[in-house]
């Protein structure tokens, strides 16, 4: 999908837009060169290469392939086709796989073996299957290559992609050293690495705490940011007492004055009561000396553990790493149950639910909230960022969101290096897709409340991929301390300051302007437009409740008969299953229900509070991220891109009409107020040629041949066969 900007003078940046039409590619690509390597990035070195290698084109039923050269560099595994790029879409030339691959399978005599470090047999592998972290699957046939070359490339890939390595070897450093320094730092994103950024943030939210500067040299703690904010009444003595553990770190202030704090937990209390007293003082401070009541949420008690999350995702992603049609249709049969059984969707729901509970405390009860967790840098980050997105429209803009990720995650010391396992460590405990989980939750909000977000789902998908592109410093470190010390140590000219690694927010490193436009949501209701909607159009009554008009949602009065009587009724009748008909008030869902309903009754406001829907059908699968590479599920001419296209088309038309009016000099000030963002969307006009996987995968040869399930019959009748097939796959997994 993405290719990084070509090295040095070459300015053409292949990006996902190049999949729009082959014609466009023709104009963009230079005449085919005979040299067999991709345009290397600054600092990129080819380790080994082999040819001819046959790459199976997955999107072709006939299992044809393309011959070319397979290379392994310190940055990626790359396949360069022998064929001229003119006759095919860009998917072969410059197809690059970031070194962050998941697994590598090798096929010996039709049998699959998963390769983990050091498990190589000396036998000659016939086929290599690569599963990437962004869920792409590649198959390379090695039988046409000289045996030695095949073994070399295969060992090279396995060694560089799957073996543990040291942080120094990460490509980002050699890239940062060699690249031309003219690229500037991303402009508008607040990085939260200076005192001013934090002061500004506190001012924006009208917070009333103090900025701690004592950690500038990381003397207080290496697990805390350089600057952070704590309640004013914490004494300097307490500040240093437990290396920052248990300190209520300020996240965000609500307009009512109450605030959200996060903290890491302290060791088990000793008998002398020192810790208890310290903790009491901390809680007191967080309550702003009894100005507000304080609620404490221990996330480790109510949410799944980091390991649970990892295990669930490991199961979940298996359903998307599909390399042949048969597996696809077999797994289609019990699709919903299979996805449910991984528990991934439920984890998403639980996180959103928890965030709603916190939001309720802030918004409705106006209490201060302290969320706690062992380190305070995993689920604390998820929940606090979600809460802020739901409450603060600033974080629903593109730059605001990037600032939030900087604030809560990067400056907030989420252990990206360990959680993303950038160094391929064999440690089973630490890797966990916590940040991805957060993006999943945000995606749920985006799909439920699309007009409230300035960024698109494509942006989220790209961001989730970028975590594994080892070029940016953003997701590379465990803490602010590690970032600073490493960048300092790696610097070639220590006197000129630390190494300048680009941040992921500098999107021009990855994408050209045209592609970056896809990050914006054309359905976003700008503030200006929103005002107009509110003024002119009454809130659209909603269409489905034929017999339950909005009045029906009103909760019964407090003294209403069911609310009060249910308890006694329960005792009297032992009615347990009545809850199916009437949610009993003591269930957790019922607690937030009233809050929900009150919110529902308010007029629609995309710039106000947002709550996610959490009932069964409302939490969905992030189709774009998970299904984009699977050719079987690409809807040609369909998918959400069709809607986006229509919207973009309309925007252009409106702008053209405006221009016309402008030329005639009768621009009316009244109309100016509803001016839309001048946003020339660069989508291809002909949405028919786009598939639902746009802008990621290229479509199946532009033919309109339908996909017909191959195993309709078997799926319904021959369950035995199905069962046996499933057994086979588990066998493969067990080889890990």
């Amino acid at each position: 999908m993405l290719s990084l900007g070509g090295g040095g003078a070459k300015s053409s940046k292949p990006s996902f837009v190049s999949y729009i039409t082959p014609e466009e590619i023709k104009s963009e690509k230079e005449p085919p060169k005979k040299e067999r390597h991709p345009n290397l990035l600054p600092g990129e070195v080819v380790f080994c290469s082999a040819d001819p290698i046959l790459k199976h084109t997955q999107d072709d039923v006939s299992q044809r392939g393309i011959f070319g050269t397979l290379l392994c560099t310190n940055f990626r595994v790359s396949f360069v086709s022998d064929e001229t790029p003119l006759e095919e879409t860009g998917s072969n030339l410059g197809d690059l796989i970031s070194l962050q691959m998941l697994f590598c399978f090798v096929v010996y005599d039709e049998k699959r073996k998963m390769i983990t470090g050091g498990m190589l047999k000396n036998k000659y592998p016939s086929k290599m299957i690569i599963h990437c972290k962004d869920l792409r699957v590649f198959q390379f046939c090695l039988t046409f290559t000289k045996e030695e070359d095949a073994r070399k490339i295969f060992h090279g890939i396995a060694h560089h992609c799957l073996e543990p390595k040291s942080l120094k070897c990460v490509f980002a450093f050699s890239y940062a050293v060699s690249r031309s320094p003219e690229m500037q730092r991303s402009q508008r994103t607040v990085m939260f690495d200076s005192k001013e950024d934090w002061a500004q943030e506190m001012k924006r939210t009208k917070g009333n705490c103090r900025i701690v500067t004592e950690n500038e040299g990381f003397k207080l703690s290496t697990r805390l940011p350089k600057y952070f904010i704590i309640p004013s009444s914490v004494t300097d003595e307490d500040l240093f007492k437990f290396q920052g553990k248990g300190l209520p770190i300020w996240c965000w202030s609500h307009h009512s004055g109450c605030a959200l704090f996060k903290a890491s937990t302290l060791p088990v209390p000793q008998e002398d009561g020192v810790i208890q007293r310290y903790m009491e003082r901390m809680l007191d401070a967080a309550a702003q000396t009894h100005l507000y009541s304080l609620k404490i949420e221990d996330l480790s008690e109510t949410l799944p553990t980091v390991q649970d999350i990892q295990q669930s995702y490991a199961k979940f992603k298996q359903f998307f790493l599909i390399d042949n049609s048969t597996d696809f249709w077999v797994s289609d049969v019990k699709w919903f149950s299979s996805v449910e059984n991984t528990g991934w969707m439920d984890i998403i729901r639980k996180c959103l639910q928890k965030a709603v509970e916190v939001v309720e405390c802030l918004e409705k009860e106006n209490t201060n909230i302290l969320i706690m967790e062992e380190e305070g840098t995993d689920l604390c980050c998820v929940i606090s960022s979600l809460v802020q997105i739901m409450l603060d429209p600033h974080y629903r803009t593109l730059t605001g969101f990037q600032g939030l990720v900087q604030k809560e995650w990067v400056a907030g010391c989420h252990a990206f290096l360990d959680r993303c396992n950038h160094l391929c460590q064999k440690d089973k405990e630490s890797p966990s897709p916590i940040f991805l989980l957060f993006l999943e939750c945000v995606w749920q909000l985006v799909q439920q409340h699309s007009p409230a977000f300035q960024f698109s789902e494509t942006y989220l998908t790209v961001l989730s991929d970028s975590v594994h592109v080892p070029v940016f410093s953003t997701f590379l470190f465990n803490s602010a301390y590690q970032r600073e010390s490493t960048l300092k140590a790696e610097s070639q000219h220590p006197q000129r300051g630390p190494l300048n690694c680009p941040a992921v927010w500098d999107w021009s490193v990855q994408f050209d302007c045209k592609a970056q436009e896809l990050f914006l949501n054309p359905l976003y209701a700008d503030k200006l437009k929103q005002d107009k909607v509110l003024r002119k159009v009454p809130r659209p009554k909603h269409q489905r409740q034929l017999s339950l008009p909005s009045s029906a949602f009103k909760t019964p009065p407090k003294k209403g008969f069911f609310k009060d009587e249910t308890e006694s009724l329960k005792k009297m009748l032992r009615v347990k299953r009545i809850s199916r008909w009437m949610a009993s008030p003591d269930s957790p869902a019922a607690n937030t229900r009233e809050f929900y309903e009150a919110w529902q009754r308010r007029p629609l406001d995309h710039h106000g509070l947002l709550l996610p829907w959490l009932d069964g059908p409302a939490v969905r699968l992030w189709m774009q991220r998970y299904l984009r590479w699977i050719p079987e599920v690409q809807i040609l001419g369909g998918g959400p891109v069709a809607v986006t296209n229509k919207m973009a088309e309309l925007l252009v038309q409106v702008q053209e009409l405006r221009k016309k009016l402008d030329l005639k000099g009768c621009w009316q000030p009244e109309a100016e107020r509803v001016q839309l963002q001048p946003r020339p969307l660069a989508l291809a006009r002909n949405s028919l040629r786009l598939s639902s996987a746009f802008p990621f995968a290229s479509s199946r040869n532009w033919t309109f041949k339908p996909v017909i399930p191959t195993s309709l019959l078997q799926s319904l009748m021959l369950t035995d066969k199905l069962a046996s097939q499933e057994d086979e796959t588990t066998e493969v997994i067990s080889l890990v």
Partner: protein
Amino acid sequence: TRSESSRTYMGCGGTGDESCKSVFFSLSYFSPTSSHVEWCKQLIAATISSQISGCAPPEVITRECKVNQQRVIPLDEVPLVPGETIKSTAKDVMYICPFTGAVTGTLTVTDYKLFFVSLEREPPFILDVNLGAISRLETISVQSHGENQRGMEIVCKDMRSPRFAYKKEEQSNLEIVETLSKQAFPLSNELPLFAFQYKEEYPVDGWKVYDPVAEYKRQGLPNESWTISKINSNYEVCDTYPALLVIPTSIKEDELRRVASFRAKHRIPVLSWIHPETQATIVRCSQPLVGPSDRRCKEDERYLQTIMDANAQSHKLTIFDARQGSVADTNKAKDGGYENESFYHHVELNFLEIPNIHVMRESLRKLKEVVYPTIDELRWHSAIDATHWLEYIRLLLAGAVRVADKVESSKSSLVVHCSDGWDRTAQLTSLAMLMLDSYYRTLRGFQVLLEKEWISFGHKFASRVGHGDENHANSERSPLFVQFIDCVWQMMRQFPSAFEFNELFLITILDHLYSCLFGTFLYNSEQERNEKEVQSKTVSLWSYVNSQPEDFTNPFYVDYENQVLYPLASLRHLELWVGYYVRWNPRMRPQMPVHQNLKELLFLRAELQKKVEELQREASSSRSISSSSEHASSPSHGGTPLHSTV
């Protein structure tokens, strides 16, 4: 009252605690489903609590008085459609709302609907159920604290089951139940269907939407190989087919009659759709009466040969038998069967393996259990899986894709049939036509498609839906049309800008499939509809729809002209139609309307366009800009809205 007492699950004696026990006992005897136990408990719970809280609290009364003084039109007045009359009213009835708790109010039964209004809440709580949507009525009675309490459950065809509680002693309550059971099932009680009393007048006549000759002409028919035949004008050849049929030109009348006697219910192969370029055709019929002895019919064999020959592009004919192969074999043993490939030359037979109407009915029943009244969040997906509903949707879509692909890619003509050719056949041909022909994806075209493939070709709407009939257990009932509309919705989701109509249009169709307000879906065949003079005595649903088309238009619509759409028949892309099946649950309220944003923009564009045009006219320029203002503000139609409002 006989029917009512038979539906009463128990007459409960004793008082106090005893009654509870006997409730459980007798219910477990009479009704095997646990939901009845719950229902009983609920009823008791509701009545007990009403006794505890005593008579109506004074504040409620005062508020009601206030309302009385202020209002000009009483809030609890029942809005009536023209021709509707109130039949019975009962006060102090309690509606046990599964979402917001019990609420007491007035229940009214008219000849068209059941209307419950409670002024206890602000704004007033209203429940409105078309009588046509009612599948069955159940009453139970319990005695608690010395009072006879009765409960009434109204099991509906549209995925809900409202429950009411009322006191047994009051005469008006008994009356209303009796009236309801009569009015809800007019045909069982020798009453007319409400469609014949509905007196609304619309500016557009929906009965003119479908003109078979015009539709066939649009398809390029008749041509040299196909003719529009009047042989069935008196419904003599086949009483479930329309009067006009498209058959091969070269077929003689006596041959045709012999073919008819060889096909189940005389449903001969007739043309449904012809490809404008390749002349490949979709032909529909019923199963051949082959029987266990492998009977042959030379005329039938020649007939299919003629169909194949009418298409010069291909020398093959494909037959899609929608049934499961094993079921087709069973049918063969019972005098039905399927074409033998060795007798029919160049014919290829495929089974699409779609289960029968009973399986579908059971699947939807299970689905209702999953979605109403409450949802189990944790097990939502596996519960949906267990109903198999989406799996059958997938099967149908996959079958239709195969049909469409055969015509489009292989350019070969094909024949679709199941057993009688009025259920699965209609589903498959109409879905394939929707994929192949962009005309059917317009608001008007879809109406034509339904009128043609479903209504005129004798899908047995009366039997499948059971309009006005109290026999809810009739095995003829099955939600095949609902399933088809669901498939259309799935296609709409996959191609959000390919359809001119919107989701509300589909929901409106399904609501009036049951409502009996319009004549469109009444009766089993064209012949029957003519006998009952449906066109002159009732209003068409399309009159209503086409009087306010903007409500039913998809703002994202882009004409995918001449574009074949293949939906993906993968469960990964199928989804439960929450907006229809779970719409009664207020927590399933749809997301904020994205459409609103777009409608704004469309409006803005239209305004700007108008301005530009005005200026151009002023400048008396000869050039004129095409004005395709999509936002036409047409006068909204008066009267009560018959669909859920946007």
